[in-house]
């Protein structure tokens, strides 16, 4: 056993002769560690401490607030990862579980998370009465719900596409399920999971900002964090403080991207499933630094140790060559199906009863009418954003040097929580006395339009050079060029971007249709406003109805518009 451990141990020993990079990396890492411990102390404090140390607008406190926010983010990311590994693996390995979990994940992806806050905050506060932990958990859970579903979905899809021949090797050598998971499934799915976690994390910022200061009925919970700092700034109409919050947000996003995700993406590149050496591997200065300092094995050691620990629990080796297909018992199958149908019946009856007991026609028509208004907004906004960003994205994407520079910026803007910028819009609307029904709308797409941009850029960069040369040689230009070269080329990418943008816009409507600046309250008509008002009033039933209607609309939109478009693009326009 020692022979396998020795290399990493000797690497640790060599650290006693430190070099400059060692010092830099050590400083950064220990700084991070101290900050994390210091922050963690605040998390378990009693709830009354929130009142003793109220959030203040002093910029000196902002780093601490930012750290609390980041810690929430990472707690949620950790929870999402654990959830993903367990649930997605279960869905991929068990046919029965898969049939329930996969559609559930698909639906949960479309449910407006912001609407959830009402329920989760109440739930978690009752779970830990009198402790900050409850409110913290509610906030973490809000972020979790924005990450977990699509991470699990991506992991599930990776597991389903594990190459047959590698699977056969595992069966042929009789690898235990656990060993197979660690040796094949997990490495294979890692690159997609890391990429997805990065994108989900970007989405999470939006919700952490919205979930730190929340009022449900007459309960107000304010956690120290950038979000609550911002909320206070808005309440006190402190323009400078809003600026500080925006700046802090930008710094935090840049830092976690450079110090956390870039290194992980660079590291995960080794798991990319390709048999030839890649042309350009993702690079990260921090990853390079860790590698040069030989700190990487130390950082990764806990993971390896965890894997080894799990493997000691492994059952005895199976005789190799045993048949891999097991026929399920006939009666077990019957019982399972019966159970599922019973569950469905009970759930339907229960929901129906609950709905019928209070749902009035007036409520329903209002929710549906508001949904139509919001839908109109989403359609118009996506159309407008497409008109702007598709041509721009194509032009940028066709210039590789420019695209290289713009792409990270677009991704950064997509990660930036747009709700931080809402106050500026409100000030403008109040100043010029504009109609909220029209001018609040752009806020919905403020943060999500970038998905269209960076997907179109990626699509345009992927148009093969020979196609462009052929088009140029035959003098194809103007509208014909757009119609026959550029638009078909970027279409599949555009659909991906527009799908994300549209889903995000629905979600954002909950915070974008009702906004405040001090005592100015602006309200647009729409389903988002309906849910937001119901939340403030503590009317759980209306919140539930609003969420249900919005979920239906988002799902319907995806199924009836985006999926067919996506299928069309895949079938007819895929350039490969």
């Amino acid at each position: 056993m020692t022979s396998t451990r020795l290399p990493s141990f000797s690497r640790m020993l060599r650290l006693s002769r430190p070099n400059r990079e060692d010092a830099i990396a050590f400083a950064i890492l220990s700084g991070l560690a101290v900050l994390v411990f210091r922050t963690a102390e605040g998390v378990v404090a009693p709830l009354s401490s929130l009142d003793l140390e109220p959030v203040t607008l002093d910029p000196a406190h902002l780093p601490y607030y930012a750290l609390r926010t980041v810690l929430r983010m990472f707690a949620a990311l950790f929870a999402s990862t654990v959830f993903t590994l367990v649930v997605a693996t279960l869905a991929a390995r068990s046919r029965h579980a898969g049939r329930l979990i996969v559609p559930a994940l698909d639906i949960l992806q479309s449910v407006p998370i912001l609407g959830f806050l009402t329920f989760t905050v109440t739930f978690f506060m009752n779970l830990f009465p009198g402790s900050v932990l409850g409110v913290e958990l509610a906030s973490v859970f809000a972020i979790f719900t924005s990450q977990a579903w699509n991470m699990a979905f991506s992991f599930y899809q990776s597991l389903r596409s594990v190459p047959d021949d590698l699977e056969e090797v595992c069966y042929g050598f009789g690898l235990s399920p656990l060993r197979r998971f660690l040796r094949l499934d997990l490495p294979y799915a890692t690159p997609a999971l890391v990429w997805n976690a990065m994108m989900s994390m970007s989405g999470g910022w939006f919700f952490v900002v919205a979930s730190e200061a929340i009022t449900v009925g007459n309960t107000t919970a304010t956690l120290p964090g950038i979000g609550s700092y911002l909320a206070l700034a808005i309440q006190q109409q402190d323009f400078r403080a809003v600026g500080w919050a925006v700046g802090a947000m930008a710094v935090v996003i840049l830092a976690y991207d450079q110090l956390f995700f870039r290194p992980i993406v660079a590291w995960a590149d080794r798991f990319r499933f390709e048999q030839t050496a890649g042309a350009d591997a993702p690079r990260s200065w921090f990853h390079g630094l860790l590698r040069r300092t030989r700190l990487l094995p130390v950082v990764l050691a806990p993971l390896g140790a965890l894997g080894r620990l799990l493997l000691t629990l492994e059952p005895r080796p199976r005789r190799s060559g045993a048949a891999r297909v097991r026929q399920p018992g006939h009666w077990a199958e019957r019982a399972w199906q019966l159970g599922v149908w019973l569950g469905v019946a009970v759930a339907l009856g229960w929901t129906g009863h609950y709905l019928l007991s209070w749902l009035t026609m007036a409520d329903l028509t209002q929710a549906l009418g508001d949904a139509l208004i919001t839908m109109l907004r989403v359609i118009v906004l996506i159309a407008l954003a497409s008109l702007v960003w598709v041509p721009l994205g194509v032009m940028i994407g066709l210039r590789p040097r420019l695209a290289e520079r713009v792409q990270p910026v677009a991704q950064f803007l997509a990660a930036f929580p747009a709700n931080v910028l809402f106050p500026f819009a409100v000030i403008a609307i109040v100043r010029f006395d504009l109609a909220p029904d029209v001018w609040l709308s752009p806020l919905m797409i403020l943060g999500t339009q970038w998905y269209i941009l960076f997907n179109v850029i990626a699509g345009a960069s992927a148009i093969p050079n020979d196609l462009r040369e052929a088009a140029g040689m035959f003098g194809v230009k103007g509208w014909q060029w757009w119609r026959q070269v550029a638009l078909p080329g970027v279409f599949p990418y555009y659909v991906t971007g527009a799908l994300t943008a549209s889903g995000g816009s629905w979600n954002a409507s909950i915070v974008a249709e009702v906004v405040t600046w001090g005592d100015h309250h602006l309200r647009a008509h729409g389903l988002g406003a309906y849910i937001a008002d119901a939340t403030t009033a503590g009317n759980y039933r209306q919140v539930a109805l609003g969420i249900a209607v919005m979920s239906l609309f988002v799902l319907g939109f995806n199924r009836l518009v985006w999926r067919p478009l996506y299928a069309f693009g895949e079938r007819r326009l895929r350039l490969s």
Partner: protein
Amino acid sequence: MATIVPAQPLIEVKGLNHFYGPPPGGHLVLENVDLTLYQNEVVGLLGRSGSGKSTLLRSIAGLIQPRQGTVTRIASPDCPDPSVAMVFQTFALFPWLTVLQNVELGLEAQKVPAPERRTRALAAIDLIGLDGFENAYPKELSGGMRQRVGLARALVVNPALLLMDEPFSALDVLTAETLRTDLLDLWSEGRMPIQSILIVTHNIEEAVQMCDRILVFSSNPGRVVAEIKVDIPRPRDRLDPPFRALVDDIYARMTARPSDAAPLREGVFPGTGIAMVLPHVSTNTLAGLIEEVDGTPFNGQASMAELADSLNFEIDDLFPMAETLQLLRFAELRGAQLLLTPAARRYAQADVDHRKAMFGEALLAHVPLAGHIRRILDERASHKAPARRFRDELEDHMSPDFASETLKTVTNWGRYAEVFTYHEDDDQFSLEDPQ
């Protein structure tokens, strides 16, 4: 060699039937296969794609549970636990593991202690000629080196039977030859810890070069149609007359129709009438093949083995082409000889328009599905018919995959011959051409 000793059986396969698709029913891929593997022999499974030979290999490996029939491993005094290990066509290496880690994988699963694992893996790597590459990742290696890793990984667990699934077909000709020779050297010197080798291939020369016994499979469904003992002494020389004769003989057996009495007009493909499964063969390659056989040195008659050599075709490429020519009455297969008919020789000399006309005539006369589609289009006032309708008709007789491939093929042939056309947008066949 060891032929005097009564052969000790190693694996016995009895009455194997296997279907694709959910039971009951499904598409029959293996029909009633019996096979006994003995110690100290190299056995080849030779057949075209779709002959179920890989399915048989996987049944023996325990990766697939056949619908009917048994696979028994027979223990004997010198081989108490006959285990198997497999080498894959695609190498099936883990890209995130080094060569050494890949080779250790099977031992790790068996919980062999680390020091022993290391020793055995290094020994296998040494045996197979991979020294110096222990720490390389698969993507840093050439195809040949990768397959050596696959081989070392299989050998290190000391299997009684080594299963090889087209192990050299993803490699270029020279690399494949080197690997084959190295493997045969190790085998004849008895340096590998294995009792027998079972190799799946669709390369006839490879089978003759490597095997003591060759089982020839027919396609759709897979059945053993011939068992051939190869008695040519090793090392075998491809240019040796007995070697060539055996290769020709196998070509002849593989082109033989199920029963020689079957009249030519029923064609060679499974199914009859419009339900005939058509292979995906492009009209360009058909024209090319006709020209090749029509020209020097063949002058209208060529042996399949020579054609395969001169065009560098595998049997999976060549057989469907030759059989399509036969279906269209442009050629006749006699033994292992491909003979062009007078029509084909005229085709070779004709210009584009005449070629299309000749092809169209042959298509409508001899491919029932093409005639059927044309007839329907002629009968309808609009001269249009949805493709869905023909797809449904085909799916009554064959699996959706075969139906889709058959329809695609007939569409291509029909378009080339200008006897009908197809629009993807509305999924319709029609007579008219675009204006």
